[in-house]
């Protein structure tokens, strides 16, 4: 029979809109407005999960985010399987598929429950005391078994097809929580002009009022009042109401993270619809109206299905119209337990109140009597009996007498725990408050106010007043309020926990503290016995408070038990840090759009699409995509690179070098600035001349290199490595702005402005000549290492005669927008000569044949200019440059540093790994590295492998034999040689 546990006349669920869903394969119905938990209860399904360690059957404890037990897996199809979802907050919709977790083979018959029997053998921290022998068994036997048993729901295994987004929001006042205090705060705060954001984790505003329809505010019934306020707020243009939106993180300077669940509650899956959105709100003022959660009462079997929080029962009855049982015992330490008892009685559930206090307010006794509720004062529950449902509770009365009350529902009102998570994250101080028997907000360190139950103002009338005042204060005093705070006629007394007896199950019974992690009073007492007295120690040792509910219902009870064991007041047990997030947040929401191609922006050169169309294979260099080689059909990389190398040296090759960093250094003191930055001397460099520059950090190690052309007396065109451009620019700006602000120099990054086309090879001049205007490209007029300005293919150009290949070479700089056009023109000319287009792999081979280093490959941040044979570049007479002083430190001048050498194979043709180690010719065992291979290629020009390496004392060891390590075989012999393999005299530069 469907929903036979509904109360006919109660609840906010929409009975005109039934919803069909499935749980563990059973198809059930509920109504729009139900959570999975309320719908299951309405169908008489109480057991919703199994506990983590003992696999005890569990039903709901709560009705919201405090729930530790009822965790389910939701299946929305491939890639959309979510584990550990709270049944108490999961809105049902048509077609919802939910499954219970952590049980095998089924929820009703769970073999893991055998752990229950062995609980005495596996107390807190048992795993630290065993599983140590034999040593190998931990990894092979014990740990795999533990891992299989641990975990809750199934992990996601398929790619998540949903989309997520993130955005920044700004407002004058952010109100967190739309319960009575939050609504009142939003009303007050939005009366002025400031932007107000009101967010609430629930599906609708109202908070605790949704479970308390009998309350009256401003003369209206609670639900009507909520409706009226929401309508009022919605009509104000400065208010944004965000439901299904959890404030989960409170950062510095009032940056509050919200996660908005946009479509999780909707049936089906609409392609393209956003699943969740991360909103980072920067608020001038924040009002936290985050409410309070209820504490369980400690007694044996307090985890039996049917034992739940009193506040939760009230919500199930009033908001969802669920008949939870037929006979109920309310174990209370507060007056609020009576409100639950009254509501139960009004729902025609036979109710007994077990008040742990001795004296009871006469008004409460009177109302109880009127409703036929038996009240037993100064009594406490000892144990709940039953299996998959509670059947009775044994109690102890003031006189020590015990009796058993038959019931199918035990409601616990152990006190209230203000939700101070966000306040604590804001670095606000917390204070122990005896009246509350809990921590409440104390001094704030940011512009934040707490209002209502989250600061111990539990009574509705005070919460309303408090919220209104906080909203008013946050909006800057008097916002011209048209009316005063909402008022309610309730005469509810404020909570006062002073002198309320604590039940800490001192009789050795196993009362559950942390339901999800199965931590009991016994575990905590053991931890104390073993010296885990610090709150962080007993928490970590027993795992109390570390489950997915983050200890919402367990932390205070754990303090009570530990305090009792240590004979310390609860308030002196200590408090753990409230860490974000408040409730779990999906990775998808936090990653937002930064997934796939948008994970890191892609930089493309002007010829990218052309190269792709030619079948180029690309490689990632920093954020750049660079063409690595251009295979003809059927060619391997090796074959393609050998062809590209061969033709470039024989004819010519064209390379897109646009990724080179470019910085324009301009100003009357530009030469002086360059003198101070780079190791080289620049003053005497003639206009139109170029120089290879080396840049260090002040620690003396090579940071970058590149060719620099002097365009004018006061203007340098500086090139950097592709990956180093941003770093060089930052470094230059740093010294210019902070060390030498007197220099009249201006820096402009021009990397993106210049496309660079490198034409190298004996026919390079012949290819370019027909295209170039205004520049005499003849050998006599245009020497190596000079730069000219003119036009090419009708486009203005800075034409460099430079070579990274050892061939006659030019680098054509043209505006990026014209890059493709000029590229095509050059390629067309090149084709006439049989030139080739090549990529990064070929340039690496060609430069290695010439012994030219690549910063980041031959150097690694521990390399000095002298190490790589660049000592010649250093301007010897300069008083200073960045890094100069460090070059004379003992460590940088010590004998035995690794130096750049060339390597040729002896008796084999194997190209070694880049990164392979260099060891002695007949090194003793164990080998000790004397250096490493930095670059290694098949050289087409030398028709064999070549390598560059850094070798201890390398320059003095030319001619010696070394061995190069291999990951697949024996080390092979190589001969140390000069790093310039080809054309040491540089004849080829002339074409």
């Amino acid at each position, binding site marked *: 029979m469907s929903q036979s546990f509904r109360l006919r006349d109660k609840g906010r669920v929409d009975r005109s809109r039934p919803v069909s869903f499935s749980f563990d394969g059973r198809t059930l119905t509920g109504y729009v407005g139900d959570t999975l938990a309320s719908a299951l209860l309405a169908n008489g399904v109480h057991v919703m999960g199994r506990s983590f360690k003992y696999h005890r059957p569990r039903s709901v404890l709560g009705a919201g985010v405090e729930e530790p037990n009822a965790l389910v897996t939701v299946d929305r199809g491939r*890639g959309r399987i979510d584990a550990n979802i709270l049944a108490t907050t999961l809105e049902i919709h048509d077609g919802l598929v939910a499954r219970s977790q952590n049980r095998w083979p089924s929820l009703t018959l769970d073999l893991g429950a055998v752990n229950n029997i062995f609980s005495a053998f596996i107390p807190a921290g048992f795993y630290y005391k065993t599983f140590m022998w034999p040593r190998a068994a931990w990894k092979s036997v014990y740990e795999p078994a533990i891992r299989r048993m641990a975990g809750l729901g199934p992990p996601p295994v*398929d790619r*998540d097809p949903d989309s997520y987004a993130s955005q920044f929001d700004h407002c004058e006042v952010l109100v967190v929580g739309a319960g009575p205090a939050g609504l009142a705060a939003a009303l007050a705060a939005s009366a002025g002009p400031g932007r107000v954001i009101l967010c609430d984790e629930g599906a609708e505003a109202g908070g605790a009022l949704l479970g308390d329809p009998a309350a009256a505010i401003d003369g209206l019934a609670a639900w009507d009042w909520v409706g009226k306020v929401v309508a009022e707020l919605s009509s104000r243009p400065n208010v944004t109401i965000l439901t299904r939106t959890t404030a989960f993180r409170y*950062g510095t300077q009032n940056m509050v993270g919200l996660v908005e669940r946009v479509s999780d509650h909707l049936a089906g899956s609409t392609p393209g619809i956003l699943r969740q959105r991360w909103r980072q709100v920067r608020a001038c003022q924040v009002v936290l109206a985050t409410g309070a959660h209820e504490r369980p009462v400690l007694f044996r079997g307090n985890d039996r299905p049917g034992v739940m929080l009193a506040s939760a029962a009230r919500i199930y009855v009033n908001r969802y119209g669920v008949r939870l049982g037929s006979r109920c015992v309310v174990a209370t330490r507060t007056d609020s337990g009576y409100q639950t008892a009254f509501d139960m009685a009004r729902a025609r559930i036979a109710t007994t109140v077990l008040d742990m206090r001795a004296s009871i307010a006469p008004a409460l006794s009177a109302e109880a009597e009127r409703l036929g509720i038996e009240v037993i004062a100064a009594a406490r529950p000892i144990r709940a009996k039953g299996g998959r449902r509670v059947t009775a509770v044994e109690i102890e009365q003031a006189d020590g007498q015990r009796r058993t009350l038959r019931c199918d529902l035990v409601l616990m009102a152990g006190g209230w725990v203000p939700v101070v998570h966000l306040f604590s994250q804001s670095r606000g101080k917390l204070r122990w408050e005896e009246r509350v028997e809990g921590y409440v907000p104390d001094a704030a360190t940011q512009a934040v106010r707490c209002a209502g139950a989250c600061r111990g103002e539990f009574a509705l009338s005070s919460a309303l007043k408090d919220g209104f005042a906080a909203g008013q204060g946050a909006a800057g005093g008097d916002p011209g309020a048209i009316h005063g705070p909402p008022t309610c006629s309730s005469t509810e007394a404020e909570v006062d926990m002073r002198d309320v007896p604590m039940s800490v199950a001192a009789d050795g019974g196993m009362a559950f503290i942390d339901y999800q992690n199965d931590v009991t009073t016994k575990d905590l007492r053991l931890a104390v016995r073993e010296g885990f007295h610090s709150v962080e120690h007993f928490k970590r040792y027993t795992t109390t408070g570390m489950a997915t509910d983050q200890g919402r219902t367990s932390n205070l009870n754990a303090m009570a038990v530990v305090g009792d064991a240590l004979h310390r007041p609860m308030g002196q047990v200590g408090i753990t840090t409230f860490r974000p997030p408040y409730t779990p947040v999906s990775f998808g929401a936090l990653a937002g759009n930064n997934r796939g191609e948008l994970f890191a922006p892609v930089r493309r050169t002007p010829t990218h699409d052309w190269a792709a169309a030619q079948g180029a294979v690309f490689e990632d260099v920093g954020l750049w995509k660079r063409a690595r080689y251009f295979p003809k059909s059927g060619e391997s990389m090796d074959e393609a690179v050998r062809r590209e190398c061969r033709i470039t040296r024989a004819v010519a090759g064209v390379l897109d070098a646009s990724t080179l960093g470019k910085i324009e250094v301009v100003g009357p003191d530009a030469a002086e600035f360059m003198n101070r930055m780079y190791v080289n001397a620049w003053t005497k460099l003639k206009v139109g001349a170029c120089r290879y520059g080396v840049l260090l950090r002040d620690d003396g190690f090579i940071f970058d290199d590149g060719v620099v052309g002097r365009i004018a007396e006061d203007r340098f065109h500086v090139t950097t490595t592709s990956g180093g451009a941003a770093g060089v620019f930052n470094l230059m700006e740093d010294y210019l702005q902070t060390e030498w602000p007197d220099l009249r120099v201006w820096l402009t990054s021009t990397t993106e402005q210049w496309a660079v086309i490198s034409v190298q090879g004996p026919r390079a001049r012949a290819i370019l000549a027909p295209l170039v205007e205004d520049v005499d490209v003849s050998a006599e007029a245009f020497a190596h290492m000079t730069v000219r300005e003119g036009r090419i293919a009708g486009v203005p150009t800075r034409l460099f005669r430079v070579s990274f290949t050892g061939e006659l070479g030019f680098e054509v700089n043209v505006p990026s927008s014209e890059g493709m056009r000029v590229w095509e023109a050059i390629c067309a000319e090149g084709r006439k000569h049989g030139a080739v287009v090549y990529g990064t792999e070929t340039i690496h081979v060609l430069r290695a044949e010439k012994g030219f280093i690549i910063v980041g490959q031959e150097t690694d941040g521990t390399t000095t200019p002298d190490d790589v044979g660049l000592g010649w570049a250093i301007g010897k007479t300069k008083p200073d440059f960045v890094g100069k002083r460090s070059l004379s430190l003992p460590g940088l001048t010590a004998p035995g540093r690794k130096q750049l050498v060339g390597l040729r194979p002896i008796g084999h043709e194997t190209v070694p*790994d880049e990164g392979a180690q260099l060891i002695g010719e007949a090194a003793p065992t164990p080998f000790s590295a004397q250096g490493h291979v930095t670059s290694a290629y098949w050289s087409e020009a030398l028709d064999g492998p070549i390598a560059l390496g850094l070798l201890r004392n390398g320059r003095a060891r030319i001619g010696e034999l070394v061995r190069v390590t291999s*990951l697949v075989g024996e080390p092979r012999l190589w001969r140390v040689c000069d790093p310039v393999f080809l054309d040491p005299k540089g004849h080829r530069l002339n074409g």
Partner: protein
Amino acid sequence: MRFSALTLLRSAFDGQSRYPHQWRKADPRPSYDVIVIGGGGHGLATAYYLAKEYGVTNVAVIEKGWIGGGNTGRNTTIIRSNYLFDESAALYDHALTLWRGLSQELNYNVMFSPRGVLMLAHTVHDVQSIKRHVHANRLNGVDNAWLTRAQVAAFCPGLNMSPEARHPIVGAALQRSGGTARHDAVAWGFARAASARGVDIIENCEVVGIRRRIDGAVAGVETSRGFIGARKIGVVTAGRSSQVMAMADVRLPIESYPLQALVSEPTKPVLDCVVMSNTVHGYVSQSDKGELVIGAGSDAYVSYSQAGSAHVAAEAIGAVCELFPQFARMRMLRNWGGIVDLTPDRSPIIGKTPVPGLYANCGWGTGGFKATPGSGHIFAHTLATGDPHPIAAPFSLDRFLTGRLINEAAAAAVAH
């Protein structure tokens, strides 16, 4: 009391009533031969090995809060030794050797689990850098291996091996002997074993000053519980090194940054090794409890806030979702920060300071946990003998004067 399955069995029948404190709650004595400031893993290990290896038992470990409460209890528990330079490899491999038998040595299951540490290569440059590590490691006897793309896919199912990925995986280094351990247990295990050998572990005792003799040498420490004399003082206070050393007028080449970590909700097993990637900038493993444990680089600025910015944690999550797109469906359960002391070359400082009797063991940066037993072992040698252990010698403070840096960061940009 010796821990074993038998102990558990016996205790099941006496209501767990016979377990004593795992470590004595010591009150400070007037003076000690050696005071170790800092009750984290490194400090407790130092005290343990002082007592065990060098017979120095008149030792106090002084802890401001609760033991293991600093970076020991905040890190992502990765253990590996595949460092590039000989000096580093020797240091971390010494630690790894001790990890292997640590549970038995301490009679405390620290759950060292050599489940393999996979370091992903995405680019040509990554391949060069990682292969350089593999070659160097093998010479140093460190079991690092190169895996091809196909081998990576087979070793770690679930990784996004698509060539269309923004940073496609092209290979990886695998140190099979690397893995994880249970961080809290390391602190507790060392504390229990040290305490059993006579070391005083003094919690809730904050050092507020270092008193020096007329000749400049240390005389002891001023604490929140009064003066405690000492012949030698070892400072092992990660995240507070600059402040504690400043008490003796020593200024260190250290800056302290927040380093964040986070865990997901627990799920059934889905990831059986540690996966690290410098290019996408994140690392992830799954704890025995089922939580994904995730970390990334440190926050950008010096801070002692133990927090850090949300976008840094989000970037780490983004990185993990790049490697495992299916994890977008996982949920973050807890996010926290520690404070890491970074040296300019990202290698630790172990040894003497300019103040006689004052020794430092600091600057472990983002990766100190993996070194815990090794760090304690060689620092104990240094404290006991007054001379650096041969493995510790290159990690002296004066390398920042001479320029003899051990720059693992520059050489590899390895975050952790």
